[in-house]
């Protein structure tokens, strides 16, 4: 019997894989499952039928929108908030994004750039890969590249925070002017993650996780805030036939 049957009362608790065994296998009856190719899939009961596949590897591990599962009884439109939220959780647990040290105790790198790019990639896939919203480079370069990307708009801190509270993609950057140029970039937490900390931060060990804004980039450093233009996001109308 499906342990999450209460979440889908319109589906028989005895139906295997929502009566969709050709596309799914369901070893434990949860919302995460492996498809028949052994690929990790994720569907969240958020009113959207969107199913995501975990794709990429190492520092590029992210969710990519795959298809709509109409048996979920929701809407055939992605919920961007959920996409961002789950990617932030995935980043937090992705060992490849955690700082490591060589035998001399020297950092081999921190990866706020990749973590932010992974969130962008997940959102981009949910937007049908159009427009292009993933920007590359180091943290300093990303700060420049986001500013040049017409799909983002600069906003105030308060506007960025509000956009994230509404489930949108908000980004904070610090462009370090020093020639050695170690800047920082991070996404604002959304959904359930906001209770853990305002910023989904990847950086030095101590500052990795859901942190306050000042733990991500200290208060005396100049920051810039951007949001993914809200008109790019789909209008989600939940039409669950519960």
């Amino acid at each position, binding site marked *: 019997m499906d342990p999450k049957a209460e979440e889908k009362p319109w589906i028989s608790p005895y139906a295997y894989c929502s009566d969709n065994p050709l596309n799914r296998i369901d070893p434990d009856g949860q919302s995460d499952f492996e498809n028949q190719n052994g690929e990790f899939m994720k569907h969240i009961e958020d009113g959207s039928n969107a199913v995501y596949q975990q794709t990429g590897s190492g520092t590029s591990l992210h969710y990519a929108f795959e298809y709509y599962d109409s048996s979920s009884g929701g809407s055939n439109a992605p919920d961007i908030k959920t996409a961002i939220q789950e990617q932030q959780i995935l980043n937090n647990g992705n060992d490849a994004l955690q700082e490591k040290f060589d035998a001399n105790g020297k950092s081999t790198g921190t*990866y706020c750039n990749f973590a932010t790019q992974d969130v962008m990639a997940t959102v981009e896939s949910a937007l049908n890969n159009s427009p292009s919203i993933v920007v*590359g480079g180091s943290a300093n370069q990303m700060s420049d590249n986001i500013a040049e990307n017409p799909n983002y708009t600069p906003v105030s801190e308060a506007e960025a925070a509000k956009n994230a509270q509404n489930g949108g993609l908000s980004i904070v950057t610090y462009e370090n*002017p020093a020639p050695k140029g*170690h800047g920082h970039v991070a996404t604002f937490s959304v959904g359930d993650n906001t209770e853990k900390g305002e910023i989904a931060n990847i950086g030095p060990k101590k500052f990795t996780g859901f942190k306050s804004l000042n733990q991500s980039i*200290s208060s005396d450093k100049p920051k810039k805030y951007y949001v993914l233009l809200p008109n790019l996001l789909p209008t989600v109308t939940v039409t669950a036939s519960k």
Partner: protein
Amino acid sequence: MKSIVLISIFVLLSTLSYAQKLSGRWQIQTSVISDAYLGNYLFTDSTFEYIIDGYDGLNPIQVLGGTYFIKSDTLFFTVKYIKKQVGGKLERSEIYSDNDSWALEGGKIETEILSPPIHAAATIKRQNNVLWIDERKFFKLNTEDEK
């Protein structure tokens, strides 16, 4: 006589071609661009800058630069200037993680001309996008990745 001229032209072109191919950014240890560069050389056809590791927040000398040329398997540097951080505030950093997270932040960058310039030489060996300078491995970065 004609063959000597041809050989000379060939040697000259080979040297120039080798030098030109150094153009670009070469990062120590890895070709992966993490959130900051590790120590790296930025070469043009005739000039260079060495930019220190972006994870080192304590070193006030951030860049040294000048001209270079290659002869056989030796890279000859003429260091003409350094870019140095002056002033700034010592702090526990949320970004720099080397030196136990101590960092000198802020201040301003001043260029100091070295007079006389400093001459130095290093062995150089290259295989495609990997360069060994005094047996340390540097990887050419794809500038497309930087954008």
